[in-house]
Structures are given as C-alpha cells and as structure tokens.
C-alpha cells in the first residue's frame, strides 16, 4: 500500500541550527531524512512509521570534505558519489572509495549519504567495516554542543546506537596514518552490482619482517552490528602469518561472529563465507610483504 503524502509533515530548515533547534525542542518527534534512499523506500512501501520528517538534504553545513595535515573530516551529508570523486579520499582512504562504489547503483550513490549509511545502523551496510578498519571517529552535534566518539563505540545492539534523539551525525573524522599500509575490502552479494551484502569485510595492516605489526579488521552482516574483529586481530598481532596462525585467526573469527538467517543468506553460508573472506584477506596480507 502506497503512503498518503497528506499524512506526512516534512519540514525543510534553512540551516543546521534550525534543524538542531527542532530536534532539541521535540526530541524523538522528528525523523531526519537526507538522500532518502532508505526512508523513501519505507515510505513508498507504506512501511514508514514516522509521520514528522526533517529534511537535511539541503544543509550545506553537512556536505563539506575538509583535509588537514593529519586527518580528513567528511561531512555527514556527503554522498557516496562525492566520496568516490574526491582525491583526498582516493589518496588516503581507498577502501572508502571501494565501499562507496559497492553501495547501490549510481543513482543511489548520488543521493545516499555517509551519515545515513551509519545512523541507519544496518549490520549489512557497506561503509561501516571500512570505517572500523580506518579507526574513524564520529562528531555528533546537538543544539547544546558537539561530542566526538570512536566509531567502534557507536553501535550498541541491532539498530541501536548512542546517537541521542536530539543529535545529528555532523562529520566523520579519519586519521591520515594509513599511507603505505596493506588494505583489503571484499563483499559477497547476490549480484555484483547494487546488492545488499551477505558478508562484507575490510582490513588494513602493517607487517614488519613477516610479523603482523598492526591489523584492523571490520566486518558486516555477521552480527547484530558492524563488528571490529578485535580477538582475531589480537591472535595475529606480533605473530608471523603462517598456516597455523591463520587458522587460529579463523577460529577466533568464528567465535566473534554471530550471523543470523535472513532473506539474503543462511547462518552456515555466512559463517563459511566470513571465514573464506578472512583467509583471503590474510593471504593477500602475507603476499603483500613478499611483493613489497
């Protein structure tokens, strides 16, 4: 059943302060909408519960990408197309370009925003594993001020986050310290183009000799939230990449993930593919030393 537009309020504040003021005065009453690639799908299908919607699409304050000496600040309202096209993102955070290119078709990438991808909190979203690997920080803003938190602390449980009803995700901060690191991202979906992930993984790392000096791995669609594989990383840190350590890492992965069965995949499939993707990541990581 299609929704009746007469039943919806949709306000367009002229600036960010106006949007924050509305959220402050009536916290929880307003559903923010940016590019609409999630909310409008629910709306078109008659499944959108919220009746009072807040338009963020035109807010300039959310659309900037600013590069400084040691970090990149990406406004929450930046689209995946912007991420793909900006040289600062291409140069320092190539996996984010990869994940942006995975996300929907071109028309979706022209509308979908990075903040929307994060706050929608789907465990299967494509950018979160990359943001976890790059140790992103989130800048949250309300009418009373801003706060910064590690992205790895953002998700609490399925679709639950620390974002308060009066807050918006203002910007994503990425530290520019991964130059020269090994990096890897892969996803499996029903189709190569614009399919929601069955499993997606991203990792960055550094080897010294053949030993793992640093390794950050994020994974999606195998737990109630996007997941940083800290136990798996811990197994490998300081160790050489051998058959033995890699199979211990796969065992650790299997203890960390908790996939569910849904319309896209079964538990057994997700477990197998997550293990395969980790093995592929680690083999590439190992080969990167020999190549370099």
């Amino acid at each position, binding site marked *: 059943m299609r929704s009746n537009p007469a039943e919806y*309020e949709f306000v367009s504040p002229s600036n960010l302060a106006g949007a924050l003021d509305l959220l402050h005065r009536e916290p929880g009453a307003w559903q923010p909408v940016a590019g609409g690639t999630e909310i409008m799908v629910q709306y*078109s*299908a008659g499944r959108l519960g919220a009746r009072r919607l807040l*338009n963020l699409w035109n807010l300039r304050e959310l659309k900037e990408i600013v590069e400084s000496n040691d970090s990149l600040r990406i406004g929450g309202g930046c689209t995946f197309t912007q991420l793909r096209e900006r040289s600062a993102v291409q140069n320092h955070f190539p996996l984010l370009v990869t994940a942006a290119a995975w996300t*929907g078709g071109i*028309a979706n990438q022209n509308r979908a925003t990075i903040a929307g991808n994060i706050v929608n909190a789907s465990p299967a979203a494509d950018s979160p594993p990359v943001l976890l690997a790059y140790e992103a920080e989130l800048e949250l803003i309300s009418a009373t001020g801003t706060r910064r938190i590690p992205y790895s602390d953002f998700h609490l449980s399925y679709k639950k986050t620390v974002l308060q009803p009066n807050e918006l995700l203002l910007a994503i901060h990425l530290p520019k310290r991964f130059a020269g690191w090994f990096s890897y991202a892969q996803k499996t979906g029903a189709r190569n183009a614009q399919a929601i992930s069955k499993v997606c993984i991203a990792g960055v790392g550094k080897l010294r000799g053949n030993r793992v000096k640093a390794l950050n791995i994020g994974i999606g669609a195998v737990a109630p939230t996007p997941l940083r594989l800290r136990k798996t990383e811990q197994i490998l840190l300081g160790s050489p990449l051998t058959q033995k350590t890699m199979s211990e890492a796969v065992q650790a992965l299997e203890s960390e993930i908790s996939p569910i069965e849904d319309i896209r995949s079964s538990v057994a499939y997700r477990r197998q593919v997550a293990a395969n993707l980790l093995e592929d990541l680690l083999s590439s990581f190992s080969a990167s030393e020999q190549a370099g």
Partner: protein
Amino acid sequence: MSRDSFSLRINGEYRKLEAYPMERLLDVLRERFGLTGTKEGCGEGECGACSVLINGELVNSCLVPIAQANGTEIVTIEGVADGEELHPAQKAFLQCGGAQCGMCTPGMIVATVHLLEKHPKPTIEQIREGLNGNLCRCTGYMRIFEAVEKAASLGTSR
C-alpha cells in the same frame, strides 16, 4: 497537513505547483505534468525505470520527495531530445535495437545521457557500472551496451 508551493524547472520550462512536501517527484512528473515517459518499476530505487536528472545528477525519482526537488532543474526522457532532433543516445538505442518491451528504456536512456556527460568515451566497465542501477528483463543487456557504445561514437553534442 497542508500543501506548500514549489517551483522547479522541468525540461527547460519553469513550473510551479502546490503539493504535499512528501509527494514523490515521480508522481508529480507523471500525474501533474503528464510526463509519463518516466516509469514506475519497483518503487524502491532498485530498477531505475524512474531515472531522471536533477541538476545533472542521475536519481531515482521514486525516492525523491518533491520538497527536495524544489528549486532544481529536472530533465526527464521527454527533455532529452532537442526538439525533433533525437539525442545520440536515443538514435543509438533505435539503431542497435536496445529496447524490447520499452519499460526500462526511458530510464536506460536517461542513465546513458548521464554516463556520457561524465565519460564521453566510456569503457565497457564504465558502461556496465553506469547502467547497473537500471534493470532490463528482456534484452539481456548486450544490445543496450552496444547502443551506449554507439551513442558515444555519435558524440553527445547536439
């Protein structure tokens, strides 16, 4: 809720309308302005049948509330040709038989126009990616890809 006033430019003409802000651009184009070349396929941003350009950017018009299109410039399939002179993408789809039932064709052509603006001489990979949000259930895509290559060779200048 009450209707608001919106103004936008559609295929070069200034248009004003009163609408609920959550009316979909797709419905406004089809039902208010009779621009029925833009099709509704899935209604959830997967199939690209409702592709239009907003300020030159390819979008699925089923996912755009009219309030977000206020003050913008829209190009639909009806605005792709220059009067009687078809756009190279349209000529190429005709010449190559890049259509069967026709349901996806307006969206395919609008996506092609957008692709050729960004990549006047696209590689096959760029063609496949540029059209990957536009689903066709008849052709198997090969003639569509040929049409896009042909359109590129015809040039985008009108």
